[in-house]
């Protein structure tokens, strides 16, 4: 069975508070916190890119997994905020890691790309060996453009995460991928989109409505298929979109909100990077214990959504 071998993350050092954004958006800092649960987020420095942040997360992931870049057989890179149409950041990240010749695939799936990458990696690792999934987002470059949207700009931040997936479950204590479900439906593709040289367009009502229904449904489908009750899951590591959404999904599954790891207060929504940043933090503290069930879930533009279940053996 494929296994999760470790996580890594990188967030820029610059902290952007609600007070700083409120002054630019002519709103109250408390309003931002009330509607999103976000107190601050990180913005990348001008010289930092989707590529450079992705490399930083990849290097931390490899270090934590006690692996070298030369141990990788493939990389998958998710980003909805890469700086150019093509090539995407995957080839540049692979090159910077010294992986010329190793297949490097871009997944331009905002918000849900890291989950799709992890699920694909569990299948592809049987062919390619160790697969490094990276998600890197420089959302500030998108939402800080004038005119800044009060309902959009405060929600997002920058960062990167990485997850290493190997083809074989290791000794006791390693983390086996049990199963995953992935779905896509373009019915509401226009409701969350980023056109070239245009501001981010988000129909918040539609996004929240669909996410509120589809995420619990995907998790429920996965748990039913694997004959596990939601109450047996130790931690839910979900895309960090909005604290209200995390709470809503917890209620729908009838589990304590405390089991949904949340760092949204500190980083905001870092799109596809958020789930891996959350996983990297949780993996460090408190981290997995024997027999823990860990459920990943995400929802993003497209819409794409799904869930992945892992278990510590």
């Amino acid at each position, binding site marked *: 069975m494929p296994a999760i071998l470790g996580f890594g993350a990188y967030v820029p050092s610059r902290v952007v508070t609600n007070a700083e954004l409120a002054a630019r958006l002519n709103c109250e800092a408390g309003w931002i916190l009330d509607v999103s649960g976000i107190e601050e987020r990180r913005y990348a420095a001008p010289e930092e890119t989707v590529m450079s942040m992705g490399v930083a997360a990849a290097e931390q992931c490899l270090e934590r997994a006690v692996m070298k870049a030369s141990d990788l057989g493939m990389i998958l890179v998710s980003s909805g905020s890469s700086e150019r149409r093509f090539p995407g950041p995957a080839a540049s990240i692979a090159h910077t890691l010294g992986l010329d010749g190793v297949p490097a695939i871009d997944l331009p799936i905002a918000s849900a790309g890291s989950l799709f990458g992890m699920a694909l990696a569990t299948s592809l690792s049987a062919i390619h060996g160790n697969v490094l999934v990276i998600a890197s987002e420089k959302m500030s470059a998108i939402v800080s453009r004038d005119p800044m949207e009060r309902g959009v700009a405060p929600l997002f931040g920058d960062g990167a995460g990485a997850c290493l997936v190997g083809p074989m479950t290791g000794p006791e204590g390693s983390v086996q991928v049990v199963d995953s479900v992935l779905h896509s439906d373009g019915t509401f593709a226009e409701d969350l989109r980023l056109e070239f040289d245009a501001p981010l367009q988000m129909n918040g*009502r*539609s996004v929240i409505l669909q996410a509120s*229904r589809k995420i619990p449904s995907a998790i429920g489908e996965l748990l039913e298929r694997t004959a596990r009750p939601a109450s047996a899951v130790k931690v839910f590591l979900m895309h960090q979109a909005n604290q209200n959404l995390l709470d809503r999904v917890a209620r729908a599954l009838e589990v304590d909100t405390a089991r949904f790891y949340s760092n949204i207060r500190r980083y905001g929504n870092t799109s596809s990077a958020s789930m891996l940043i959350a996983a990297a933090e949780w993996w460090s503290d408190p981290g997995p214990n024997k027999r823990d069930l860990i459920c990943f879930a995400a929802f993003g533009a497209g819409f794409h959504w799904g869930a992945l279940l892992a278990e510590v053996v």
Partner: protein
Amino acid sequence: MDNRERIVAIVRKVSNNNTLPDPDESLFDSGFLDSFALPDLISELEREFGMKFPDSNLSPRKFETITRIQSYIESRM
């Protein structure tokens, strides 16, 4: 209760607001509902009318006013 009264009762319950919404006034613009109340409204409507709305049908515009909600529900009866 007729369908409209049942819908109004649900809007009042979800919004925690006992005033009577104008049937053609936006429930969002008038402050009865916000984005996070919409999923609750739809779940309550599904329960009250014994229906399961397909996700692909769920444009928020269908739930913008009492009249639109009634029209959508009655189209599915």
